[in-house]
């Protein structure tokens, strides 16, 4: 529920009226079906190809088992995971910190149009690129290592959090704000006791969500040299060390699930 709201979906409508046959919509369905068939053919998606893949897949899976538990490998993995967590924590922290002012600037009900449009364009730009792509640029600019990953994830965090924060502010109930303004409160005080209480819970919600998402991505930026477990994973993969790949995969999944639990808890506290 919180997540639905965090990503801006409307609440499900309680519509019960069965619509009469809607021809334009039906045509759209048919069009979509034809498109799917056409697109699949251009991508060389065929049963033969899938059939060829299945034994390959079985072979692949067989080589994954048992997971590699050599001490050296585990230690290497632990280092990588720690670095991924560090990247996630720092990028979430600084990303959110920078998103607060940016989101405020992007809120159309508080700022003049030229300010909010500039801020919105900037967040749209930040949001457009997958963190791994942004990481490529930072690796070039500041070299291999965790910092490139952190900066890449900060960019992504700002793209999402600023947008959601701005939307939360735009949905603020202005009657409540006006009532606070009518007491003679300063702008800062109106912000603190009129606007923040209305957006705080949602904000905590999507910040927790972002921590989650940054952790997932922090395991991937290593593929392009952005630090974290991704480097070890990709190297093992390219060397066909599939048993070690499997160990790392299990660890990543475990960490992601734990972080999901943490993020649920955070949301509960700040409800």
């Amino acid at each position, binding site marked *: 529920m919180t*997540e*639905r709201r965090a990503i801006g*979906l*409307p*609440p*499900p*409508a*309680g*519509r*019960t*009226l*069965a619509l009469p046959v809607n021809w334009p919509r039906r045509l759209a369905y048919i069009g*979509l079906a034809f498109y*799917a068939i056409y*697109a699949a053919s*251009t*991508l*060389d*998606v065929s049963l033969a*190809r899938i059939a060829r*893949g*299945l034994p*390959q*897949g079985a072979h*692949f899976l067989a080589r994954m088992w048992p997971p590699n538990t050599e001490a050296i490998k585990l230690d290497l993995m632990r280092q990588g995971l720690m*670095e991924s*967590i*560090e*990247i996630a*924590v720092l990028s979430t*922290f600084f990303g959110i910190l920078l998103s607060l002012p940016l989101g405020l600037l992007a809120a159309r009900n508080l700022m003049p149009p030229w300010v909010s449009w500039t801020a919105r364009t900037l967040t*749209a*730009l930040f*949001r*457009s*690129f997958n963190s*791994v*792509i942004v990481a*490529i640029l930072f690796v*070039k*600019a*500041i*070299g291999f*290592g*965790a*910092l490139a990953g952190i900066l890449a994830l900060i960019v992504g965090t700002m793209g999402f959090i600023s947008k959601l924060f701005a939307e939360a502010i735009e949905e603020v109930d202005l009657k409540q704000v006006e009532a606070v303004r009518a007491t003679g409160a300063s702008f800062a005080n109106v912000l603190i006791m009129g606007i923040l209480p209305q957006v705080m819970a949602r904000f905590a919600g999507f910040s927790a969500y972002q921590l989650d998402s940054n952790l997932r991505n922090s*395991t*991937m930026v290593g*593929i*392009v040299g952005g630090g974290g477990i991704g480097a070890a*994973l990709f190297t093992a*993969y390219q060397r066909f060390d599939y048993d070690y790949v499997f160990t790392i*995969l299990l660890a*990543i*999944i475990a960490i992601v*699930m734990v972080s*999901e639990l943490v993020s649920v808890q*955070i949301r509960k*506290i*700040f409800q």
Partner: protein
Amino acid sequence: MSGAIGQHRWQRFSVQQRLARFTAYLSAVAAVVWAARSVEIIPEFLADAPAQTADLFRRMWPFDWSYYGREVHAALIETIHIATLGTLLAIAFAVPIALLAARNITPSKTLNLIATFVLVATRSINTLLWALLFVAIFGPGALAGMLAIGFHSIGFVGKLLAEALEETPRAPIDALRATGAPPASILSKGYWPAVEPSFWGIALLRWDINIRESAVLGLVGGGGIGMALDTAQNNLYWDQVGLVLAVIFAVVIVTEIITSTIRERLI
């Protein structure tokens, strides 16, 4: 009025609430401090960062426009196909799983739990990881990319769909059931109309996300525009990298415009 009232102490939250918040803040600070102290940052790299960044931008512009016709255009079309087919694939898998996960539709706790687990598991494996897996099985190419996008999206689509199903108002469903309608028509006449707007919202949102996600698949051999990016980057042709990035940005913006237009029409 009595003086005792004047001595009330007022605090914003109950003790437990304050404790919970305090713990949350403290852990956040502790986590940030720990991370900042232990993360390895090489200061020498930082020193020439401004120069390197300036150099990067200088090499990017002007774009190598000829690269668009040679590589990027076909890769771009492939990316869009991957994202769209992947989304359709995800929906095909997610709908039955969501039905199993929704507690008001499937009364079995065990089935709910299994379905929820599948949703969580598919989601917690990153698209790139799925791509690695499918590249190993089917070899590099768009098929692997499409499957990666599809499998990773199952969790997202399924979870939101299950939530929408669970929030369906009971009254119309009960009324249908009272008429003795078979389960299939309860689904199509009772639940579907109620969740349809959410369904399209979810599908569009995921498609939008998948367009961005599929741009990166090529880095691990999953096809699409990421391949063009990877080639250019490995060859240090930054003017080509710049072009690819600009194309990705343009596509993302267009996608966003399309989805928001459709969303306004549909919902």
